[in-house]
């Protein structure tokens, strides 16, 4: 007996499956073509989606990308500070919708000592008044020993840098009194002494300048330094790199405010990402062009070999869509299998690049699944359409004669 019966399947499906089984060698070529078309695109989609998102997250962890400072050559010096009205104007800018986080700092000099021990006039230290809740959200790289300062506590919870804590032997949960001093030692006026007692809630370690500072609540610092409603600097984190410029220009236009962008690191990472994406996109584009040509060649050869079949189908009354369906069906079938394989390989490639270059896992991407389904379908549908169009352009008798 001949072919096995497939009674449950519709007649065209049976015909397509029989044809596919008969022409499995060409099917392998079709499968390979579809896979080659899909692999780089799936990789590109997976990497561009996941790595872009991840790098944006990393960049956020790197800290601020804008510094807003007073219009003065000596930021942080008394008298060169941002007024709260300037800060309000900055935050009210339309461009500020791209601000992911911002942290105010007020810098000054104070002496620190234990209350009631006669050491209140101890070593001068740089104090930084800030909003601890904002610091916690915007500067996740702070490594803290102890607990985050509680808002409104008495005495005020504060954080001491690791180096400063070691130098002054400031221990956790110890109380300290602060008094503003002239940082130059030249007898400048200092604000009147306030009842500024703090408690060391935590010790911070960043590996940077923060390790030598004493962080106290902003309102306390403003009282201590006699700078109500003022800050020395605003550290701003903008959500995406392309929004930095517009916001910086808008801030620069506000009287009393100056702006510095911290783009070197951002730009460097963006260049890596953009280069990688461009490389993958170029490979994907080239692969698509090559595989399109291959698909056209495969479909053309397949139809040429089945020329008499085309003639017969037309002689029996088949219309162009039916001819396309029956003669291109096996190409689509193999193309779909190739697309599935291409998706798996493309994702594996993306995962490998993600692990080796960006050191992060790459999860499967839904858009990649769609691409793996659509690309072979579109590729071989168009190639078959072109080949069938050519085959049907001639009289059926020519196809029968030449087949």
């Amino acid at each position, binding site marked *: 007996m001949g072919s096995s019966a497939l009674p449950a399947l519709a007649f065209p499906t049976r015909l397509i499956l029989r044809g596919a089984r008969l022409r499995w060698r060409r099917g392998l070529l079709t499968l390979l073509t579809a896979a080659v078309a899909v692999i780089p695109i799936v990789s590109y989609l997976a990497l561009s989606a996941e790595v872009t998102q991840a790098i944006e997250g990393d960049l956020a962890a790197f800290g601020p990308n804008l510094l807003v400072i007073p219009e003065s050559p000596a930021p942080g010096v008394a008298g060169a500070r941002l007024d709260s009205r300037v800060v309000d104007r900055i935050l009210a800018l339309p461009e500020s919708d791209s601000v992911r986080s911002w942290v105010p700092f007020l810098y000054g000099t104070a002496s620190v000592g234990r209350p009631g021990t006669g050491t209140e006039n101890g070593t001068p230290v740089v104090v930084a008044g800030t909003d601890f809740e904002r610091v916690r959200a915007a500067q996740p790289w702070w490594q803290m020993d102890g607990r985050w300062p509680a808002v409104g506590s008495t005495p005020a919870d504060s954080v001491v840098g690791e180096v400063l804590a070691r130098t002054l032997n400031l221990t956790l949960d110890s109380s300290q009194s602060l008094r503003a001093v002239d940082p130059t030692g030249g007898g400048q006026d200092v604000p009147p002494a306030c009842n500024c007692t703090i408690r060391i809630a935590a010790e911070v370690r960043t590996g940077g300048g923060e390790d030598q500072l004493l962080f106290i609540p902003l309102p306390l610092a403003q009282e201590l330094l006699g700078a109500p409603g003022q800050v020395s600097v605003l550290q701003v984190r903008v959500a995406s790199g392309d929004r930095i410029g517009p916001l910086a220009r808008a801030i620069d236009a506000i009287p009393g405010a100056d702006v510095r962008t911290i783009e070197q690191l951002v730009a460097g990472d963006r260049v890596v990402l953009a280069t990688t994406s461009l490389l993958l996109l170029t490979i994907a584009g080239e692969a698509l062009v090559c595989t399109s040509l291959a698909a056209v060649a495969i479909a053309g050869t397949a139809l040429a070999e089945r020329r008499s079949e085309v003639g017969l189908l037309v002689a029996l*009354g088949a219309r162009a869509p039916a001819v396309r369906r029956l003669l291109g069906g096996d190409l689509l079938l193999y193309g779909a299998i190739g697309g599935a394989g291409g998706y798996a390989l493309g994702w594996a490639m993306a995962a490998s690049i993600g692990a080796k270059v960006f050191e992060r896992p790459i999860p499967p991407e839904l858009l990649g699944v769609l691409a793996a389904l659509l690309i072979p379908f579109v590729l071989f549908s168009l190639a078959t359409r072109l080949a069938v169009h050519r085959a049907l352009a001639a009289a059926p008798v020519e196809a029968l004669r030449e087949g």
Partner: protein
Amino acid sequence: MARVRLAKKEDGLQPPQILEARERPPDHSVPDGPSMSRPIPRRVGRPVVVVSGCQKVYEGKTAALREVSMTVHAGEWVTIVGPSGSGKTTLLNIIGSLDQPSAGQVRVGGKDLARLDAADLADFRSRTVGFVFQRYYLIPYLSVEENVLLAQHFAGVDDPQAARTILRKLGLGHRLGHLPHQLSGGEQQRVCIARAVVNRPSVLLCDEPTGNLDGESSRKVFDAFRRLHARGTTIILVTHQEGYAAAGDRSIRLVDGRITDDGRSAPGRDGPASTP
């Protein structure tokens, strides 16, 4: 028996004189029972194929057909004979819309083929005509039954039982699941006949149907044609074998692309069964 008249070029297309009109549709089911050794005299009806002034010139200016005009009536069996290269197959292909004439008009079943669009031509090929090819053109990876069902599929019909019945009556009941290469030439040609008649076409077009067959297989194929003809099927059969010229109601002789004779066959014809 039909009386026919050759349409002269100078006269233009002349309506054929219908002696005995019969308008009932042909029955293409292959009848049971003993085969006939000679055709039953037919009562023919309306013109079903009208070719007028048909020319076919191939590239290189080779004229395959020159001003050919002919009419075939419903229920008639016309055999077109002539030497190789005389234009017989070209004429048959043009009647079946597998090829287009360079000039002239072809009407089949009342339709001017030149005026049909692609969809109408597809309908025409699937329902109005059935082709029996010399080379069979069976799809090698489809079974006997599926090759016949293919023709049904394009006509929008899904009736496997009818296909099986026709195949059984053509003596292929035991071959339904076989692939074409597992059949003899005669069996393959009968599959081709089953595929051609499964949609009950008005006209059966046969191109050298026994050209590749031995005597016994040819006899079986002609038996099938006779049974179809007996049930009213219009048959146009092309052959270069002069001995088969008498197999139908009428024979037309083509020589060098021209009709040289269009007349009634001699009495006593019985096709290949009596050919030497």
